[in-house]
């Protein structure tokens, strides 16, 4: 019974979603949108679960003076300060997005620069990953190196200055072999998604039920 009820719910929900995809008539037409709204509501409540999990695990680390507890303390402090600033701003101005408020100060001068820093690190990681991938250790890696060099040079003005055929070659690589491989993967993913969805709807795939 513990497994059968969720399986029946999954089957019926899956069936409804499939029918709504092909049926614009009400009440089916807007059903998908309505289910998405329900999902957002559930997500809002589960965020509380997430916060509970985050705080409990970090408070445990602090209480037990586990290795790295200082990071846990920084996280809890950051959480509390941001929440306090958010509540203070919301109570004072009835909005979290008020310019010049303490919450927006934290967002603009702490969160956004931290996000930008992480994103900027990507440039260095791309360089190190590219270095490893393009080392000409085998026939395949050498081909990859040559192709990458042509594509990179063909996409910048200096490439055309060096040899006017480079942008043409770059276009051909991107539009023919690259696109063919990409579409092959896409078709595989699409078929895999349909097959996986059918397995879930028909109750063959039950891992998500634990």
């Amino acid at each position: 019974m513990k497994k059968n009820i969720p399986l029946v719910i999954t089957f019926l929900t899956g069936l409804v979603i499939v029918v709504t995809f092909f049926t614009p008539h009400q009440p089916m037409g807007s059903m998908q949108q309505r289910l998405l709204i329900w999902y957002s509501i559930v997500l809002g409540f589960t965020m509380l679960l997430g916060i509970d999990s985050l705080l409990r695990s970090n408070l445990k680390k602090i209480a037990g003076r586990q290795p790295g507890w200082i990071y846990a303390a920084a996280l809890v402090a950051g959480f509390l300060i941001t929440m306090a600033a958010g509540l203070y701003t919301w109570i004072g101005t009835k909005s979290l997005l008020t310019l010049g408020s303490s919450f927006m100060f934290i967002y603009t001068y702490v969160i956004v620069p931290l996000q930008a820093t992480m994103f900027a690190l990507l440039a260095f990681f791309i360089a190190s990953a590219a270095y490893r991938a393009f080392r000409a250790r085998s026939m395949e890696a050498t081909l990859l190196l040559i192709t990458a060099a042509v594509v990179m040079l063909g996409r910048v003005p200096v490439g055309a200055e060096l040899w006017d055929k480079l942008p043409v070659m770059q276009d051909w690589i991107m539009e023919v072999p690259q696109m063919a491989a990409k579409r092959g993967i896409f078709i595989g993913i699409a078929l895999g998604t349909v097959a996986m969805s059918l397995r879930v709807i028909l109750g063959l795939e039950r891992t998500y039920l634990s």
Partner: protein
Amino acid sequence: MKKMTAMALLLLACCSLSSALEPPQDIQAADAPNDEGQAINLSWSLPPHPEASPVPLKGFQILRAESPDGEFKEIGFVLAGKSGYSDTGVKTGTAYYYKIKALGLSDSAESQAVGPATATAQWFDTSRANVLVLTIILTFLLIWYIERAKKGDQLYIRKIQGLDAIDEAVGRSTELGKPVLYSFGLGEIRDIVTVASLAILRQVAVRCAQHGTELLVPNWDPIVMAAAQETVQQAYSEPGRPDLYKEGNVTFLTSDQFGYAAGVDGMMLRQKPGAVFFLGYFYAEALLMSETGHSIGAIQIAGTTAITQLPFFIASCDYTLIGEEMLAASCYLKRDPQLLGSLKGEDLVKAFLIWGFALMSLWATLGIILQKNGNPAMINAFNFIRDWFITG
């Protein structure tokens, strides 16, 4: 002199007559197809060369009324050069009449009323008939192969190295006395790839429980976290080690993309896991995390359906599950005949598509050759089939 004045006046009259603003012609008002009865489509003919018209035209005002003699109110405006408008502010089942007014810089010209047009809801979206046909074929093949598998037919499935390496990765972590880290990326529970990833997590958790290895699962989505907690807890009970399960190891981190990447990177640098699994849906954080995993010397297994992130995983991880391999994971790991049967059905559709593409390429090539010789029938048939596949 009088004669000259008369001629000038006649010329002026002719000019003014030829430059009079005309309302649009051939106006059609019809129910919008394949919708829930909330729109009426209007179309009209443009002058043959509107840009060469001597009268500057600003655009067309769309007027609507519920009876031909009623008061027509403006409901929209389109710029000159457009020949259609979709009225989405209608009630299902109500009859409407329309007029189109051409607006010049100083004058205007209104068409006759057209109608009645009524918006009706359709029970079947014909533009998606192609999807329905392919889904029915795929479902039939899946069920057929599942039945064959049930009867005991031996079905061959090729090796997927990334999935075979799970035992090796967990074993290595155990030997080194290090934890295992598992990330779903930024996938939500409604993403089918996340559901597939839960199946792999279960297998990883069973192995961790058998070897007594710690498993860390930082999450970006709280619903995925709840599902992961349930999966890991259940998996630890399978080999009889529920005591090893720690709820704090399957935790929520943050719903911020780069905050999550920073958190996972921090965990990797502090706790130095021996094996790292990146299986789910990833965006720009993929390389940030997998390069950090590489820098600590962890054995890394990645898999995603996010096509833009696959090259990064291939460059920085030991094994990468490409697209559909991810979705086949639960069938591959469980080796359940019914699940394997569904994979075979999927493969058959793929074979059908490959042959279909080859055949259509040949057809199009021959069609173009014949078209040049004055016989367009073959290319027309090709275009019909192609258009049928790309609609919806």
